[in-house]
């Protein structure tokens, strides 16, 4: 008989012990007790890119371990998968010394007192380093305090097909400095079938939920507007600049003069060979550096060029969405903070950082990277690095992911012409203000 009485008792004992264990450690959040002398750190890396993994495990970690006589245990998690893992680990007090995430998540770690302020450490950087990292670091700050050290930069530019420009009677060498001029060109580049349906988009802007918020942020910035007030207490997109930006976006996708189709499609995540601008389904589209490089590999000879970020004609200043990408933070309960910082500073050192960003096909985060071969030999990266000064990150406020999604929801309704742009922004602003108030 396989269910003996003894076995049952063992089971009961086990279950009881588990109940005790669950109630005992379930709600507690006591930090883990480490050995006093820290000779090892655990790191959860925000990314599963091959080059990233190879670089970290084969070069950086061995060199670092040899240098410091320490042990580094690295786990690679794509940053979209990090939240469940970190939530569970923080709840159980087993979070690693160093962990990565996207900038959008930082403020929530900060309000919960989970991450170490890094201002003191950043101050220890040499003057050259500090200046070199000047554009990257603000994306990892919350209310002026550094919490996240970005490992790469992000930013999008409008890519266009020179051959399609020529065929449409446009000069591919004439710059398009304003969104108005971009739209005029797009109208000439758009093709329709007999029923008026767009068969070739003159201009594609990301319009899937998160993309929509990012596109709006870029347009808003280039109209001189802000998403959130600088003190982080109120929505600021419910403004004339916001309306101008959203009206532009709506006009791109709908109405008789629409220059784009497939509203809601996430073309940014599509395979290179399927990118609308590669297949000829679009003449201009907003793109990431990595995608553009992949497209050029997939179809050598593709006549892609890049526009510098346009502004609205009436705007005095302008900015595009971009800036810090995913990066690393230090767990406030870590018993090995100085070792953790050593590891991070090793990663962002000029040489390592250059190899890293080149490997993942991202924008380098050091200004001096403009002089590396990776950038100099690539017209694509040169264009992106040139635009780096125009990139502004999303605001780092608590509840940002919810704010982002709320904004996207209302933008989506305006895009589908369920409400007019002004109403959509007003409704979004009232919901966002409530979230900001709750996050205080």
């Amino acid at each position, binding site marked *: 008989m396989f269910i003996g009485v003894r076995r049952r008792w063992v089971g009961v004992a086990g279950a009881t012990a*588990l109940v005790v*264990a*669950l109630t005992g450690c*379930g709600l507690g959040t006591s930090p883990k007790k480490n050995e006093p002398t820290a000779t090892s750190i655990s790191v959860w890396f925000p990314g*599963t890119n091959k080059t990233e993994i190879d670089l970290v495990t084969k070069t950086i970690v061995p060199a670092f371990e040899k240098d410091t006589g320490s042990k580094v245990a690295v786990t690679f998690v*794509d940053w979209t998968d990090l939240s469940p893992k970190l939530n569970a680990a923080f709840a*159980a007090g*087993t979070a690693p010394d160093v962990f990565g995430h996207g900038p959008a998540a930082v403020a929530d770690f900060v309000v919960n007192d989970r991450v170490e302020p890094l201002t003191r450490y950043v101050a220890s950087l040499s003057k050259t380093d500090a200046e070199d990292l000047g554009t990257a670091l603000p994306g990892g700050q919350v209310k002026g305090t550094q919490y996240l050290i970005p490992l790469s930069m992000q930013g999008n530019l409008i890519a266009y097909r020179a051959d399609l420009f020529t065929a449409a009677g446009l000069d591919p060498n004439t710059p398009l400095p304003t969104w108005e001029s971009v739209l005029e060109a797009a109208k000439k580049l758009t093709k329709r079938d007999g029923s008026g349906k767009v068969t070739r988009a003159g201009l594609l802007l990301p319009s899937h939920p998160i993309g929509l918020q990012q596109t709006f942020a870029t347009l808003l910035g280039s109209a001189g507007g802000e998403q959130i007030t600088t003190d982080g207490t109120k929505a600021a997109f419910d403004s004339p600049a916001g309306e101008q930006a959203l009206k532009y976006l709506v006009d791109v996708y709908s109405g008789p003069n629409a220059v784009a189709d497939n509203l809601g499609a996430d073309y940014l995540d599509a*395979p290179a060979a*399927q990118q609308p601008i590669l297949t000829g389904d679009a003449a201009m589209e907003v793109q990431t550096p990595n995608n553009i490089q992949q497209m050029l590999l997939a179809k050598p000879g593709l006549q892609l060029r890049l526009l510098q970020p346009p502004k609205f004609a009436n705007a005095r200043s302008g900015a595009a969405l971009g800036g810090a990408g995913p990066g690393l933070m230090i767990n406030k309960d870590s018993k090995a903070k100085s070792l953790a910082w050593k590891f991070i500073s090793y990663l962002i050192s000029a040489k390592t950082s250059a190899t890293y960003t080149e490997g993942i096909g991202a924008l380098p985060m050091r200004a001096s990277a403009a002089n590396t071969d990776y950038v100099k030999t690539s017209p694509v990266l040169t264009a992106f690095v040139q635009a780096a000064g125009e990139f502004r990150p999303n605001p780092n406020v608590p509840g940002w992911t919810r704010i982002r999604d709320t904004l996207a929801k209302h933008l989506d309704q305006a895009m589908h012409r369920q409400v007019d742009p002004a109403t959509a922004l007003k409704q979004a602003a009232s919901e966002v203000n409530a979230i900001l108030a709750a996050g205080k």
Partner: protein
Amino acid sequence: MNRRTVVNRRSPGSVVALAIATLLVVSPFLWMISLAFTPEKDAFGSVGLVPAHPTLDNFVTAFVDAHLGRALVNSTIITLVAVLTNCVAAVAAGYAFALLPFPGSRPLFYLLISTAAVPVSVTLIPLFLMAKGFPLAGGNDVLGAGGSGLLDSLGGVVLPYLVLPLNVFLARQFFSTSDISLAEAARIDGAGEWVIFRRIYLPVARPLVAVTAIFSFTAVWDDFLWPLVVTTSPQVQTVQLAIARFESSGNVRYGPLMASAVLVTLPVLAVFLFNQRSFISGLTDGSVKG
């Protein structure tokens, strides 16, 4: 409903219908296989099923970059354990819920299977806490304190799958059609309940055991979220975590992704192919003769 399908078992019409349905159902998988042999830059570049420049590189990459070999070993171990425990404990429990009711067995049954209706987002963290507080594992004392418990171990990975509630439900449904007069007769002859289960009911439950094995195998083999949360070191990665290596956001590597996904499907298919023989018993034996 095709009137011929039920009785005329070798009618060409139904074979053709089955063949067409099979082809339709399997076609997305055929594209995955095709992509597994397609160089990265050509991925999704054409509608054709046969790659223009076929390559084996993606398979090499799958093994080298994602350590698929080790992941296959890990997944095999935890899966086999879960298959075994499910085939024994879930089947026995379902049998008793169907044929050996005891006071309170119905409410207990519904209470246990209803846990399957709670989304994993909610149970993930408590389960994680329990894995960490597992007594006498990973440096823990008898009260589950002091160490890391089952975190980052194969034991921790297999923890939520040892008995899947729906397998208990399945077994109960299966046995609920059984002929109870056999058991009554055996009891009168003085047979113990365990003997009755082993000698009378288990032998005719081969399809049930086969399905339980297949389902447990699939459920454990395919899960992503729990292994993601509970493991950290590369030594205990499962196959789905290995595949995720190629899904880096904004940087998906289609070739190696498809190659590893296809490779990882094969063991489950083998298990299925082996077990599905259990479905060629009762009805077919009789009908082929007739």
